[in-house]
């Protein structure tokens, strides 16, 4: 998916280059960007860390927990949808990486095994952290959240101290993997202009210049076809001597329609995220206690690590197995292998993943949102008891959730169709699309059923 020379007449919301707007252009080229957002974010991060580790131990009373899990975590997928991986440009961990690198960085190349297995490592870490959240307590335990943040900080410091650029963000960060997948679905796209880049021999965007850093995530806008690893740090915009970089708005899911080299591990991650959305929903349902009791009777153990692991594995296996089965059925029509279909059409689930993720966390944001205010006021000795933390009523939240799931379903369905259309022709298009359409209907119904059941609070 390459871009041609920017047409100055195009509307900014219809594929026009946002850098043609002088305010956006000036802001992104400014030496204050992204620092002007990054430093305050780092400051807030330090307040959060202080609260998580040294503040109240009850999540209900902890300002750090409220900011992290009630505000930031629900907002992050929404940011990915509208601004791609912009969060990664202002992430406090990235700033810590840069600071460590500046003073003691050895700037070694990223290890080969990370380059080779990076996404699988991210997949494994994502699964492990979600599992450990339930078994050891992270979200509901401020100290657990603090320890997770400290562990990530240490990882970032090791990376910044020994390796070049943002090796941790590109190859290890579990949130980076999630955001990479979601950014493909996002509405912002940064690319080089092929006609201009074709004659360029200096690659300032990749290597950096006196005025700009090299791309922190090892991307090369000249050949970039995906937004998965573009954090919109604007270093390439500042460094390009030919003004080749374009920043455009595109319809959500558009990038997913034309993935040239689909990767099995990325498709696997999208199926895993769906499983994680299921497990997050299931364990917050009020019927979870009864389900756990049943599982304890069946397995003969009350060990939560065992019973939860069984639930967790089942929830992850279901979408992976369904996608595999659908890929196998589709292979009867399109003669592609199961693995090829899995890798190609796994990306179609991302829209539904994102909708499910946002819908789940919307509950926490809108049903517990005022807890941010209450816990913040408690820092100044103003205690509020017995007040509702809800911003919206349950009925309204549920309608919003259903609306989001409907949008996700349409996005996934259309993406599956476009993937089928861009890889096949004639009758094969519909023959391939039909099984994946059924898959999207099944996954949507599962999500809708989960969102109709009463859910427990996070705070």
């Amino acid at each position, binding site marked *: 998916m390459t871009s041609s020379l920017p047409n100055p007449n195009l509307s900014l919301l219809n594929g026009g280059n946002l850098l043609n707007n002088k305010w956006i252009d000036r802001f992104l080229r400014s030496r204050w960007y992204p620092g002007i957002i990054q430093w305050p974010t780092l400051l807030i991060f330090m307040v959060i860390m202080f609260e998580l580790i040294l503040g109240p131990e*009850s999540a209900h009373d902890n300002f750090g927990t409220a900011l992290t899990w009630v505000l930031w975590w629900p907002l992050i997928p929404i940011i990915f949808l509208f601004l791609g991986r912009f969060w990664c440009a202002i992430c406090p961990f990235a700033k810590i990486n840069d600071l460590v*690198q500046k003073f003691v960085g050895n*700037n070694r190349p990223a290890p080969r095994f990370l380059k080779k297995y990076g996404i699988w490592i991210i997949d494994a870490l994502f699964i492990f952290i979600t599992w450990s959240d339930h*078994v*050891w307590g992270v979200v509901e335990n401020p100290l657990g959240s603090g*320890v997770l943040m400290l562990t990530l900080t240490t990882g970032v410091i090791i990376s910044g101290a020994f390796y070049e650029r943002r090796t941790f963000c590109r190859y290890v960060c579990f949130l980076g993997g999630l955001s990479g997948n979601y950014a493909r679905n996002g509405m912002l796209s940064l690319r080089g202009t092929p006609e201009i880049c074709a004659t360029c021999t200096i690659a300032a965007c990749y290597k*950096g210049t006196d005025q*700009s*850093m090299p791309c922190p995530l090892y991307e090369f806008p000249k050949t970039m076809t995906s937004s998965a690893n573009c954090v919109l740090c604007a270093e390439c915009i500042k460094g390009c001597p030919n003004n080749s970089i374009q920043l455009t708005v595109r319809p959500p899911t558009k990038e997913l329609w034309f993935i040239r080299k689909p990767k099995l591990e990325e498709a696997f991650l999208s199926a895993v995220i769906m499983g994680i959305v299921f497990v997050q929903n299931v364990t917050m349902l*009020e019927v979870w206690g009864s389900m756990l009791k049943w599982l304890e009777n069946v397995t003969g153990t009350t060990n939560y690590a065992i019973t939860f692991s069984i639930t967790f594995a089942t929830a992850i296996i279901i979408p992976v197995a369904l996608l595999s089965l659908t890929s196998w059925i589709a292979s009867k029509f399109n003669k592609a292998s199961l693995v090829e279909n899995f890798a190609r059409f796994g990306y179609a689930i991302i829209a539904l993943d994102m909708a499910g993720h946002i819908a789940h966390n919307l509950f926490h944001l809108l049903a517990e949102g005022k807890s941010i205010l209450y816990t913040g006021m408690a820092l100044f000795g103003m205690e509020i008891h017995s007040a509702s933390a809800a911003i919206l009523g349950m009925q309204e939240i549920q309608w919003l959730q259903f609306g989001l799931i409907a949008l996700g379903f349409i996005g996934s369905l259309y993406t599956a169709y476009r993937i089928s259309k861009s890889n096949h022709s004639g009758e094969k298009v519909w023959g391939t699309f039909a099984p994946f359409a059924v898959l999207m209907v099944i996954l949507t119904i599962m999500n809708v059923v989960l969102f109709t059941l009463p859910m427990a609070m996070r705070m």
Partner: protein
Amino acid sequence: MKKTWFHYVVMIFAIAIFMSVPLQGVLADGEGEGIEKEVNGYHIRLTFVESPKLGENEFHVRITDAMGMPVTNAEVGVIVMPEEKMSEHEENINSESSGSDGMSGMDMPTEAASADDMNSMSGMDMGTEPESNEASIHDEPQDSHDEEPTQIVLETGHEFGEYSGHISFNRTGEWVFNIHFTMDGQLTEVEFPVTVAGLDAKYGILAGFAGINASVMSVAAFMKRKKIPTKA
């Protein structure tokens, strides 16, 4: 050789960090905050607002039934005593019961005894202690024999199924929270171990991470033979 040494250092740090994650999880559960137990089909969770420390502490007890529904309107009491006192107390009960009915060696159901049984237990005197939701343990750290169990009646908390109380610890070490409540004529009793930390464990965690991070940066600074420009 230098490269091997470098890889060795990186590997040691990586292992130390990944090892520390489950360790911290265990620490978090073992300090007494957010401990859960299942008894008689009830799910009981004891949570301290801040980790148990010397002086005033606020704690919450949340009770849910087998269906996960909060148990409201229960009269919830807590008996707090040092662990060693609890051991002596249990020994007394055992010796009294074995002396009176000769049933030594039998496993008496302690977690599902009836209210009448509990009231007859020597040393507990559940109905005679002054009832308050705030209590102080006035003991000399060295003389645990003077420590008497303190009984607290909890107040209803601000969430359904939640009960709150205060306790003031005057010494560090291991304590036992015996939580009991009566529902449908059946007394449910459960014990939670609580550690009152002398040195705040949280500062230990912070210091541990700070030490690892400082070491990493020191090694990196030491190994930085020459400055490689990050800008072309």
